[in-house]
Structure formats: structure tokens, C-alpha cells
């Protein structure tokens, strides 16, 4: 990791050894640019980069790359998410070129939630390639300046390549190997699924560190503050691959009426503080779903401010 691969702010922050802090924002269900700008205003200066989701949970929204471009206009740095569900290899490569041309420098490669979850379950799914192959493709485009078919690219996209990892999905024993495969394929950084079971995450990180994965890639731990007991119960029951311990639900319930959100934030802040000290963790990815306005407070209380200038 001697010279910069993309020159993105996120890459520079991580390379300089700072504990990175990234945020997330879902594009609007429509072309409501004002609403998007409003949400983004809360994140400005509080995070190193903002993930822009790509039709998350298979619900149609403004395209990820377009929202990324608006984010750049607002003076923030996007982390362009792309799922394999909606595009074949032609669209994938052209969208990568387009996003790069608009100033995108970070990209997160995902398989994507299956379309049966979303608001167009009748859709044909694509899955021409999978997330592992998407990572390799972005790396090839950047490092070899070639398309998937080996043709030369006239000005190659230089992207800082991200991938996701879910330490809690099954089979558990295999998850760290899958993480290693993503790093082998070319992931420069990893953002994990939301962590609620810290004990299990510690175990996962210990294995990753034992395998030396943290030295080959920056691992950012995913945090989503719980807004309510209902949200915690929903995540525990209905979201596949999510581990929400009963003790956390109990703790939130115990906070009492009107104080659950505060307790959720308190837990998130405690998590971030622990993660800062955890070996192999290079940063935190804060997914405050439709709670962007609480990000400054969380960042402040977790001691993540001010963000480094690199």
C-alpha cells in the first residue's frame, strides 16, 4: 500500500492510520434533490465518506451514481454502492466509468438483496456476475486498465474498492474465509454488516487478525443505532443474517418510554468506543437509517470529531 490507488479521502484517511468514520445515505424514492441535500447536510464534515445505497432492499430509488454526483456537488465524498442484481457486465462497466467520470473514487461491491424483498418482485434478476467477480472486475479496470473482455480502457477508473462482510451470517466458520476471498479478489476495504453481538464480532476479528487479513485490507465495523424496541425486534426476526442478542432488546426495553432512542445511541457510542480499541478494526461504518440528523451527535459523543484533514 505504498502509493494511492484512488486518491480518495477515505483511502488517504485510512492510509494515514486514522480511525475512519463513514456514513450512509439512501437516495430518495423520487427525484427529490432537496430532500437528499437536506439529509446530506447533517453528514458534511462529520464523516470521511458517505455510502450511497443502490436500490437497497430492492426498492427503486434514484440511481446510486446520480445521488453520488449530487453528493460531490455538496462537497462530500461518496462511496458508490453497486449491486449485481440489476445490471449485467455491460451496464456494470459503463456505470463504473460514468460514476468515475462524475468524480466518484470509492466503490462498494455487493451482490444485492434479492428482488423478492423489494417493490418490484416481478422483476427478472440479472446476477450476470457475483460480488466476488465484481471486486475482481473493478480491480482489473483500475490496475490493468482493461475491461472484463481484456480490451483496453481509454482512461481507466481508479477506484478504492470496498466489499461487504457479514460476520453473523451462516455458516459462521466460513465467513472469515469468504472475507479472505474478497481481499484476494481485490478489496481494499471492508464494511461489515450491522454489529449488535459484540462478543461474536470479537471472535470474528480475532480470526481475521490471526489470518493477517487486517494487514491486507482496512476493516470497518458496521454500526446501526437502534431507534426503538420494534426496530430491534424486527431486525432480530425478519432480517436474514442479523444477530441481535436478547440482552440488547431487554436493555432497550428497560430504558423506558421516550428513552429508547437515547439508549440505542448510547449503545452505539459504547460500541464505537470499544471498536476503536479492537485489534484489526480500521474504522466504523455508521448506517443511521433515516436518522442522518443524529449522526453529528453520535460522532461527537463517540469522540470521532473533528474528522482528520488529509
Amino acid at each position, binding site marked *: 500500500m505504498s502509493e494511492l490507488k484512488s486518491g480518495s479521502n477515505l483511502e488517504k484517511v485510512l492510509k494515514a492510520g486514522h480511525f475512519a468514520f463513514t456514513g450512509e445515505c439512501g437516495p430518495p424514492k423520487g427525484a427529490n434533490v432537496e430532500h437528499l441535500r437536506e439529509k446530506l447536510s447533517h453528514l458534511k464534515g462529520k464523516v470521511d465518506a458517505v455510502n450511497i445505497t443502490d436500490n437497497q432492499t430492492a426498492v427503486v430509488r434514484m440511481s446510486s451514481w446520480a445521488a453520488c454526483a449530487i453528493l460531490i456537488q455538496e462537497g462530500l465524498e461518496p462511496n458508490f454502492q453497486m449491486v449485481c442484481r440489476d445490471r449485467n457486465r455491460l451496464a456494470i462497466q459503463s456505470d463504473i466509468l460514468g460514476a468515475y467520470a462524475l468524480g466518484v473514487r470509492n466503490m462498494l461491491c455487493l451482490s444485492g438483496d*434479492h428482488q423478492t424483498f423489494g417493490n418490484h418482485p416481478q422483476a427478472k434478476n440479472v*446476477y*450476470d456476475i*457475483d460480488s466476488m*467477480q465484481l471486486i475482481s472486475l473493478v480491480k482489473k479496470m483500475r490496475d490493468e486498465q482493461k475491461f472484463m473482455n481484456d480490451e483496453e480502457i481509454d482512461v481507466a477508473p481508479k477506484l478504492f474498492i470496498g466489499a461487504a462482510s457479514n460476520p453473523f451470517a451462516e*455458516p459462521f466458520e466460513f465467513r472469515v474465509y*469468504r472475507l479472505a476471498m474478497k481481499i*484476494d479478489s481485490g478489496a481494499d476495504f471492508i464494511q461489515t454488516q450491522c454489529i449488535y453481538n459484540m462478543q461474536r464480532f470479537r471472535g470474528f476479528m480475532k480470526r481475521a487478525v490471526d489470518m493477517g487479513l487486517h494487514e491486507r485490507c482496512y476493516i470497518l465495523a458496521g454500526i446501526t443505532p437502534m431507534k426503538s424496541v420494534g426496530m430491534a425486534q424486527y431486525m432480530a426476526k425478519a432480517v*436474514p*443474517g442479523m444477530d441481535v442478542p436478547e440482552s440488547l432488546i431487554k436493555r432497550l426495553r428497560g430504558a423506558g418510554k421516550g428513552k429508547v432512542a437515547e439508549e440505542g445511541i448510547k449503545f452505539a457510542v459504547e460500541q464505537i468506543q470499544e471498536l476503536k480499541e479492537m485489534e484489526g478494526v480500521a474504522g466504523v461504518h455508521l448506517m443511521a437509517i433515516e436518522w442522518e440528523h443524529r449522526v453529528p451527535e453520535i460522532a461527537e459523543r463517540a469522540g470521532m470529531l473533528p474528522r482528520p484533514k488529509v
Partner: protein
Amino acid sequence: MIVANRKPLAEIREMVENCDKILILGCKGCVTVCNVGGAREVSILASILRIARKKEGRLLHVDEMTIERQCDPEYIEQVKDRVGQYDAVVSMACGVGPQFLSEAYPAQRFFPAVNTTFFGGAIQHGVWAERCAGCGTCIIHYFDGMCPIARCSKSLLHGPCGGSANGKCEISKEVDCIWDKIVRKKMEEGHLKDLLDPKPPKDWRTARDGGPRKSVREELVQ
């Protein structure tokens, strides 16, 4: 085999709405094995359609016949003397049947009575499951005989995705996560390493994506 389901009665009734005389033509191939379009199902559908029309007070003459296969000109030939006398022939074969019939007898109208669903087999009596996507380039030897193209909802070649839980797919608790099975089998055997080699993107030209397919065996062509 090819697995199919009978179409909803309302849909079949609508197809034959304006007919007075039809032939229901079964097939002794795959659709007989999956209990959808053999002689038994032909007689059941025929009786149902007669009942429906008797109730309306508008009789429907329904003849029944089941041939060896509807995907072979040799057997299609057997209905030569029957076609032409009907307002429609309702085929209970897979989607191949009514097409082969239409090609052989352009003057006769043929309707499909079944929805052709997948290549699979019976996992228990009365339950069939998909096993093959007909992608044209088999890779199951890499995965201990389990096909991620047909059996992973996302056709991932490097699974399981983050949505795998309790051995089930994120799309439904009724759907097995095939990647969970593949990984567990490899771990049991101590062959996890097999899965760690990256697989290249699939060449979909041999699948339907490459356009309608044809198989030519020169040694057999006359």
C-alpha cells in the same frame, strides 16, 4: 425431467370458451412422471371441462388421447388423422408439445394446458424441486454435485451471501440455501480449499442468454 403444473382451470376454460369440440392430448414423457399431463390427468381435465360446460348448459365434446411423446415428430405423426376435426387441441405436454404440434399441423389450433416450470425431480411423493437451469456448461463437479446456478437465488459462484440463515435462503424459509450445503459438505470433507479458488465470470452464451439453442449431432444427422 421437465416439471410442469397444470394451468388454473379458469385460464384453460377461457382458452376453450368458444370451442364446441376439443381434443385433450396427453404425453407419456416427463409430464406423466410429474403427474401433470399423462392419461390420468387428461381424463380428469376432460371430465372437469365437461362438467363446467354442462353446468352452463352448453355441451362441450371432449375427446381424450395420450401419445408417447409430444417432442418427437415420429409420435406427433400419430395424431395426423385426429387433428383437423377439432376447434382446438389442448396439449398437456410441456411447452415443447404444443409447439411441435403447431409446426406439424399449422391449420389446427393448439392450446397449452400446463405451465412448464423447471428441470428437476421428485424430492418426495407429490413434491418436485428444481435442480438444473440448463445453462449449457455444467459446473457441479466443483460443488460436490450441487448447482449454484439453478439452486442459489442469485446464482452466485462465490456464496453464501450475507442473507443465508439457518441453512435457508434470504428469499424464503422454504428455500434451502444451497451454498450453506456446499460449504458444510466441503468443510466436512476437509476440502474447503476447493471453494477458495476464484471462479471466472460465467460465459452465458451456452445458456438461453446466447439466443435460442440447437444441438446438432453430426453422427446422427441423416
